[in-house]
């Protein structure tokens, strides 16, 4: 293996330094990591997933199953990248994977000896049933032994971004079909985006020699496209998924030429491309062959050997066996021979389709027909191959085996809309199914492999796709590429036929633990071919010896022909079962080189045709996408928006511990009240009950309701009546859903005859708003009402406690806040100097309290004014923890009780509604099931065990009942009550057990605790409400 002195599309004037497993190496600009490794003589690049077998580079593209590497260090560490697609960059640090202690000596290579025990379904069989416990013990070791690379554990320092793109015509792939489509669509006047995953444009044309006609055609096309302002060419960009509305998901990798992106540049960018039409010119992937030890380093796809030679100027072998069952591999054979390699073609057919013998002879390439590759010899690198031929077995020494089992069109993206690919019997492969409007295909993805055909189809697709978007300027004839006889080689054939004959695995025998299935059994016998056994003197036994060893179908997941036969014997015949049972196609390569073999093998075993067996579902992504790219900038601080109240900075500056609730940041407790939350909230509760406290309630949902029918509207929306609410008064209201379950609660104040001010809970603000709009738009468009969210417009705070009125009077000396002027549930809306104040006397805590609303920009000013005026009265701020505890003491329901399962009756609120009718949820609330005595009812619980506390979420049982199952109910909210010096709780308890005075056991199985409590009234404090009046 060596780098040639001339040729290739690498820039020898720009050397790139990189390391592989710590070893310093040099490549050139234009190399992939794989080509640079090969140029440095590296054949062994990884160990396999299950058996830790030595593996080399199989392909030159995204289908690579073996050459997985980890790039970068620290937070930049990224595992499981295919070396064949990584653009070489200066300073690149690459590591091989799944080996210990080193790649050359891998301790777990011994797994191969245990292979008979590691067959398909090993884990299910070994660790299910009585032995399941063993899994707990072995899991750690098994997971460590079998696997891929390890991700970094530190935060990734790089930036990832998301961008939106729009186009008339999106073209996936820049081979002859894609380029031809781009030119035609560009000439037609469409806005074109051409997407190429490689860092170079040209697709399959890049594998032709640089001095060839096709290379000249490519540079001519690129020059013309570069001159078209309406055509944008995107390299290093993978179209990984196709989504509804013709959206393509793209991921673009940075192209800095250095391992890490330049300052300010994103490492990867997620692009959502909305295109009016799409042209899929995604090409085809070559299939390997299945034979014993077909995974040895030095076995490579024929097309890959040709790409490494012509694009990267790396001769990957000097003694080459090209094993093929189709004509396309002859091209690689000829190019390798021209470059100086000694080449033997082992063609399984009686004769190539095209007249290639003469060309082979001219280049000194030996052609052996009726020659089936049976085995590869050599462990860390291939040394020779065994060929099964009519005259007997032959061994040919070699250092490279170039294999070709035909081609599989890259139908992945075309199938993402649920379009199943269809089987073409004539070329034995799957091609895209019938695509929806505005989606077109061109080139090898259709099953043809000729360059001239691809150009023609691409041109047509480009014209059609732009016409679909209304771009129909005159388009010139396509730029044709008439390849000469030699360069055209085996592919100068009518559309499609060059794919023939693809191997059709027909796996019929092969016992568990027996030698690998004979290679010939993997494909149908063609006319003129004799049976393997007949050819081999000594019959079956001799043939079996020749083909001894594992024959891999899915090289990445270590799935062999035996595993497929085993799955069949055990009844896992459906392709979806086969996949899951054997893990075939479930690796990072998603079976790009293996799925077809598996399908045809299963078809053979079941005696069915391939299309009857079907395919597994193609889903995005086509190739792996880094989570970082999907997250974009939505990480850390930017993960989601944060809402801050107008008084936020004051809270932070004054010792508040902030808490996220919904998207809001709210003060949880103030560190000035206590060392931790438990100490602080009790102190804050005492303060509110004894002097006064100030709370930021700006997060409440606030809705302005106006219109001639506003009162009627609210009367229907709330379960309790609002029509006769006097102007200047507030009322607590409760809303139901259509199905009769409680939706939300809040207060609404009548500002004028036709004007109301509604508040909702913080959590349900958006839902309530949307619901009101829904009712007005769809159910009652005749009501003349408009609703407007004013949540952000008003700052709000509540001053609560016995001293609250004095504080209010001190803060606003000109306002009359006497009990007569502003009674409980009263409203005072006044201009106070430059401030428009809306003061509503409402209490959630059970103390005398006032809610003060003011324009958001004045919120902080009013807050500070209250704090200052309140200081002599002992006013301090309190947080949501204390607020929640105060309302529990008062038996006020909140989110934990309004949990989407409770009815008005459950919550003891039926009396509020009485005999009203015509409100949302009324009819279905009367469902029979809602009066079931097993339904829970809101109760108070008081712990009477000294030194013990109640826990939210505890399950309620009768005393002496076994603490099993779902019990009779649960605790919803809990607090320590300083007023009662006891732990109290609200709970939902089955009606039959909800008898005041009854004893109950509250069990918290997770913390292993059971506490005894007594059922009491949910209103623990001041049941007559004397504290809040007067």
């Amino acid at each position, binding site marked *: 293996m060596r780098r040639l002195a001339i040729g290739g599309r690498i820039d020898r004037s720009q050397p790139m330094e990189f390391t592989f497993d710590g070893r310093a190496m040099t490549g050139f600009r234009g190399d992939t990591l794989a080509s640079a490794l090969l140029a440095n003589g590296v054949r062994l690049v990884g160990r396999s997933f299950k058996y830790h077998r030595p593996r080399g580079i199989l392909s030159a593209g995204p289908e690579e199953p073996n050459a997985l590497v980890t790039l970068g260090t620290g937070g930049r560490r990224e595992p499981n990248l295919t070396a064949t697609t990584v653009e070489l960059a200066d300073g690149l640090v690459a590591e091989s994977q799944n080996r210990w202690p080193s790649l050359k000596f891998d301790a777990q290579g011994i797994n191969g000896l245990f292979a008979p025990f590691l067959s398909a379904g090993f884990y299910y069989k070994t660790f299910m049933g009585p032995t399941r416990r063993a899994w707990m013990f072995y899991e750690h070791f098994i997971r460590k032994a079998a696997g891929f690379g390890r991700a970094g554990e530190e935060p990734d320092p790089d930036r990832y971004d998301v961008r939106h793109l729009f186009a008339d015509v999106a073209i996936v792939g820049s081979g002859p079909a894609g380029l031809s489509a781009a030119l035609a669509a560009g000439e037609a006047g469409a806005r074109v985006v051409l997407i190429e995953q490689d860092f170079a444009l040209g697709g399959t044309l890049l594998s032709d020699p640089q001095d060839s006609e096709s290379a000249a055609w490519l540079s001519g096309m690129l020059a013309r496209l570069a001159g078209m302002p309406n055509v944008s060419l995107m390299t290093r960009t993978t179209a990984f998924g196709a*989504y509804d509305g013709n959206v393509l998901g793209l991921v673009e990798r940075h192209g800095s030429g250095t391992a890490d992106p330049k300052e300010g540049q994103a490492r990867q960018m997620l692009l959502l491309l*909305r295109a009016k039409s799409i042209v899929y010119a995604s090409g085809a992937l070559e299939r390997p062959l299945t034979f014993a030890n077909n995974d040895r380093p030095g076995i490579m796809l024929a097309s890959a050997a040709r790409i490494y030679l012509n694009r990267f100027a790396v001769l990957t072998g000097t003694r080459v066996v090209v094993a093929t069952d189709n004509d396309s591999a002859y091209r690689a054979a000829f190019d390798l021979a021209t470059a100086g390699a000694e080449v033997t073609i082992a063609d399984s057919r009686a004769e190539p389709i095209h007249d290639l013998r003469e060309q082979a002879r001219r280049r000194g390439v030996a052609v052996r027909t009726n020659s089936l590759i049976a085995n590869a010899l050599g462990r860390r690198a291939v040394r020779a191959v065994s060929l099964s031929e009519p005259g007997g077995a032959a061994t040919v020494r070699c250092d490279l085996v170039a294999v070709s089992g035909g081609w599989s069109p890259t139908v992945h993206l075309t199938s993402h809309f649920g379009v199943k690919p269809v089987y073409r019997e004539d070329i034995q492969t799957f091609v895209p199914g019938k695509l929806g409007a505005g989606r077109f295909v061109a080139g090898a993805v259709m099953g043809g492999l000729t360059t001239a055909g691809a150009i023609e189809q691409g041109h047509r697709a480009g014209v059609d796709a732009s016409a679909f978007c209304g771009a129909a300027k005159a388009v010139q004839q396509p730029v044709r590429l008439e390849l000469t006889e030699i360069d055209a080689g085996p592919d100068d054939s009518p559309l499609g036929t060059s794919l023939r004959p693809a191997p059709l695995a027909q796996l019929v025998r092969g016992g568990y633990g027996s030698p690998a299935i004979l290679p010939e059994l993997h494909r149908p016998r063609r006319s003129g071919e004799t049976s393997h056994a007949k050819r081999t003197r000594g019959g079956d036994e001799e043939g079996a010896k020749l083909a001894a060893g594992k024959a891999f179908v899915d090289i990445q997941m270590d799935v062999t022909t035996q595993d497929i036969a085993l799955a069949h014997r055990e009844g896992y015949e459906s392709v979806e079962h086969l996949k899951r049972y054997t893990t075939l196609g479930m690796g990072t390569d998603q079976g790009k080189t293996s799925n077809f073999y598996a399908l045809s093998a299963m078809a053979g075993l079941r005696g069915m045709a391939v299309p009857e067996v079907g395919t597994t579902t193609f889903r995005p992504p086509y190739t792996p996408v880094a989570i970082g790219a999907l997250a974009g900038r939505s990480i850390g601080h930017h993960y989601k928006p944060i809402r801050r109240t107008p008084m936020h900075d004051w809270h932070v500056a004054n010792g508040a511990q902030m808490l996220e609730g919904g998207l809001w940041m709210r003060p949880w407790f103030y560190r000035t009240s206590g060392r931790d939350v438990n100490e602080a909230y009790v102190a804050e509760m005492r303060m509110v009950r004894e002097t006064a406290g100030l709370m930021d309630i700006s997060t409440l949902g606030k809705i302005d309701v106006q219109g001639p029918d506003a009162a009627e509207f609210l009367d229907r929306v709330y379960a309790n009546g609002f029509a006769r609410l006097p102007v200047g008064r507030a009322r607590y209201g409760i809303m139901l859903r259509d199905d009769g379950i409680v939706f939300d609660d809040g207060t609404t104040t009548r500002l004028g005859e036709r004007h109301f001010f509604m508040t909702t809970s913080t959590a349900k603000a958006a839902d309530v708003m949307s619901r009101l709009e*829904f009712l007005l738009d769809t*159910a009652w468009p005749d009501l003349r009402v408009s609703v407007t969210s004013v949540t952000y417009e008003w700052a709000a705070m509540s001053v609560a406690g016995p001293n609250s009125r004095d504080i209010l009077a001190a803060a606003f000396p000109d306002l009359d806040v006497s009990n007569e002027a502003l009674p409980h549930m009263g409203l005072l809306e006044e201009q106070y100097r430059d401030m428009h104040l809306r003061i509503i006397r409402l209490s959630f805590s059970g103390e005398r309290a006032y809610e003060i609303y003011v324009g958001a920009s004045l919120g902080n000013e009013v807050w500070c004014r209250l704090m200052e005026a309140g200081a002599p009265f002992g006013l301090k701020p309190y947080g949501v923890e204390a607020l929640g505890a105060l309302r529990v003491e008062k038996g006020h329901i909140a989110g934990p009780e309004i949990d989407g399962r409770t009815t008005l009756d459950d919550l003891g609120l039926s009396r509020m509604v009485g005999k009203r009718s015509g409100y949302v949820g009324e*009819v279905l609330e009367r469902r029979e099931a809602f009066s079931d005595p097993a339904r829970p009812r809101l109760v108070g619980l008081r712990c009477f065990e000294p030194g013990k506390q109640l826990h939210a979420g505890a399950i309620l049982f009768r005393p002496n009942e076994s603490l099993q199952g779902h019990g009779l109910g649960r605790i919803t909210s809990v607090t320590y009550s300083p007023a009662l010096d006891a732990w109290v709780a609200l709970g939902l308890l089955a009606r039959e057990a909800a008898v005041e005075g009854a004893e109950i056991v509250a069990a918290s199985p997770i913390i292993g605790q059971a506490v005894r409590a007594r059922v009491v009234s949910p209103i623990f404090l001041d049941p007559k409400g004397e504290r809040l009046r007067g």
Partner: protein
Amino acid sequence: MLRIECPCCGPRDHDEFRYGGDASVTRPAYDDPDFEAWYRYVFVRENPAGLHREYWQHVVGCRQWLVVERDTRSHTIASIRFARETRA
């Protein structure tokens, strides 16, 4: 990704909208006491494979409730109207 042509704001991504359920069911009058009618309105759904009338609200746009006719098999949208207009 669906794109919804809002009659007020133009074509927008579906993530600007909030799905509001089946628009083919008839909501009984607010004071209709018929249990069966409410039961059918709240719980009984056709779930067609084909055209489906459904409510969407343009929550981060004009906040209008829309009636969208969408093919559940292909996500093709056949028509979009303001809910108020379909009702009135």
